[in-house]
């Protein structure tokens, strides 16, 4: 029973991070019909930027802030420079471009920051709370991780629901032509969408790194889990991405806790394939069946 509780709590914290990555993928997919396979690599890169600052003596918070800002810039640059030319083209070309970014960023990070595992500090205590004399696998840092993701999500909801900018971004995502006819600068909105997605991705990168070892490929599995979560949520819906992320976090935590951590990625693959074959529109989508 105690193990079940611990596994569940761990899963929730990890699920929050997967939600963030899934959300980043969904933001980009909605507006440009591209799955950004480089999302994890970009997040890894900005996490390393944060780590360099922290190792140079800056505080964790400065590192986090700089990671988010560099994510913003990186996302915008990537969209403008390399993604824009393949937008609306054959889908294979866009896939290949994001894969090229994936391997390119990963190698660049290894060149600049080294390819060995290094530890990334956590801002809060990594020792679990004690409840009724029992130590549980829920730490102050887990609370921070979940809270950070929740705050970012609420901020995004507020942006999309209540601001004119958010309205224009949503309009651009749903119908580029009509938006242009209404004077919306669709190109700028797409760039902004990629930039925001990269910010959310960067946050996920820094959060999952906290208290762990990072290496240039530490996000490989995370981006796959995020993709699975996004597909589980229907790939279109930000809400679905969040629920999908938490679901994947819990399921994978159970697999890791009861079957073995080596099988986590395999379990993710099984879930992904099962979802794609049985319910391609995602578990939480109201949309009609669509082609996957």
């Amino acid at each position, binding site marked *: 029973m105690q193990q079940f509780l611990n596994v569940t709590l761990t899963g929730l914290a990890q699920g929050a991070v997967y939600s963030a990555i899934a959300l980043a993928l969904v933001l980009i997919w909605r507006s440009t019909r591209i799955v950004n396979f480089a999302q994890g690599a970009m997040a890894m890169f900005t996490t390393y930027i944060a780590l360099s600052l922290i190792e140079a003596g800056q505080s964790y918070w400065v590192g986090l802030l700089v990671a988010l800002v560099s994510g913003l810039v990186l996302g915008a640059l990537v969209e403008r420079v390399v993604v824009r030319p393949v937008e609306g083209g054959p889908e294979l070309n866009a896939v290949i471009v994001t894969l090229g970014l994936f391997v390119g960023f990963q190698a660049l990070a290894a060149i600049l920051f080294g390819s060995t595992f290094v530890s990334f500090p956590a801002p809060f205590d990594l020792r679990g709370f004690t409840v009724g004399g029992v130590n549980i696998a829920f730490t102050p840092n887990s609370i921070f991780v979940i809270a950070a993701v929740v705050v970012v999500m609420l901020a995004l909801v507020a942006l999309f629901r209540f601001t004119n900018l958010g309205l224009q971004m949503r309009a651009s995502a*749903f119908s580029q*032509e*009509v938006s242009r*006819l*209404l004077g*919306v600068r669709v190109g700028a909105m797409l760039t902004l969408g990629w930039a925001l997605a990269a910010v959310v991705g960067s946050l996920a990168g820094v959060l999952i790194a906290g208290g762990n070892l990072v290496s240039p490929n530490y996000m490989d599995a995370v981006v796959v889990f995020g993709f699975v979560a996004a597909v589980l949520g229907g790939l279109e819906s930000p809400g679905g991405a969040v629920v999908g992320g938490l679901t994947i976090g819990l399921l994978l935590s159970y697999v890791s806790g009861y079957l073995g951590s080596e099988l986590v990625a395999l379990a993710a693959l099984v879930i992904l394939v099962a979802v794609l074959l049985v319910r391609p529109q995602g578990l939480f989508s109201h949309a009609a069946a669509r082609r996957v």
Partner: protein
Amino acid sequence: MSAPATTAALQVRGLSASYGPVTALDGVDVTAEPGRITAVLGANGAGKTTLLRTISGLVRPTAGQVLLGDRDLTRAPAETIARAGVAHVPEGRGVITELTVEENLRLGALLGSSRKRTRHVIDDVYAMFPPLAERRARHAHTLSGGERQMLVIGRALVTGPDVLLLDEPSLGLAPRIVAQIFGLLRELVDDAASGRLSVLLVEQNARSALSIADVGVVLNLGRVVATDSAAALAADDGLRHAYLGF
């Protein structure tokens, strides 16, 4: 952007456009005068929709000019043309169905307020189209065809346009609703307070279009075959039989 006292005419001069090797427009001249409805008529494939899409910047012209007053809008991006005061109401699915009715209108009003000369605000649209007011919080995909047409027209109006480009507003609508929409259009143009709107109305339903239009332009295979007053076109039996189908 300063607001001129009278709105400018939209002038299209020698406009040509093609889709790959297929020429869709071939040297078309059309003028939409303020305070008038100019109907663009012709059979399917005559180039009517392409004309509107080229004016609003969705299609790049291969030759010719699009002028709004003395401002050259030829080859400007669609968003710039929209900001200059040309509101294009596209055929059929111009509603963003994933947004609510209110959000669709807010999107139009954003452009209107950035132009600082909004003549119609969202509440006016609700007053004009009561069914929209009832469904303001609903997603636009729940609307009927007529309601969608009201929404796209209302959304175009809140942008505060000088020129309204309407593509087949009668398509798929019941005759009663078409009459209602056309009547409203006539009222808008005649209403001095609306600042002398120019309307370019593309219609396959030539008879109804001519009944509210001041001027008509007949297109065939991408060329203008006739330009005259609506009454004269309606009276020209040969032309009507050859190109207008009534």
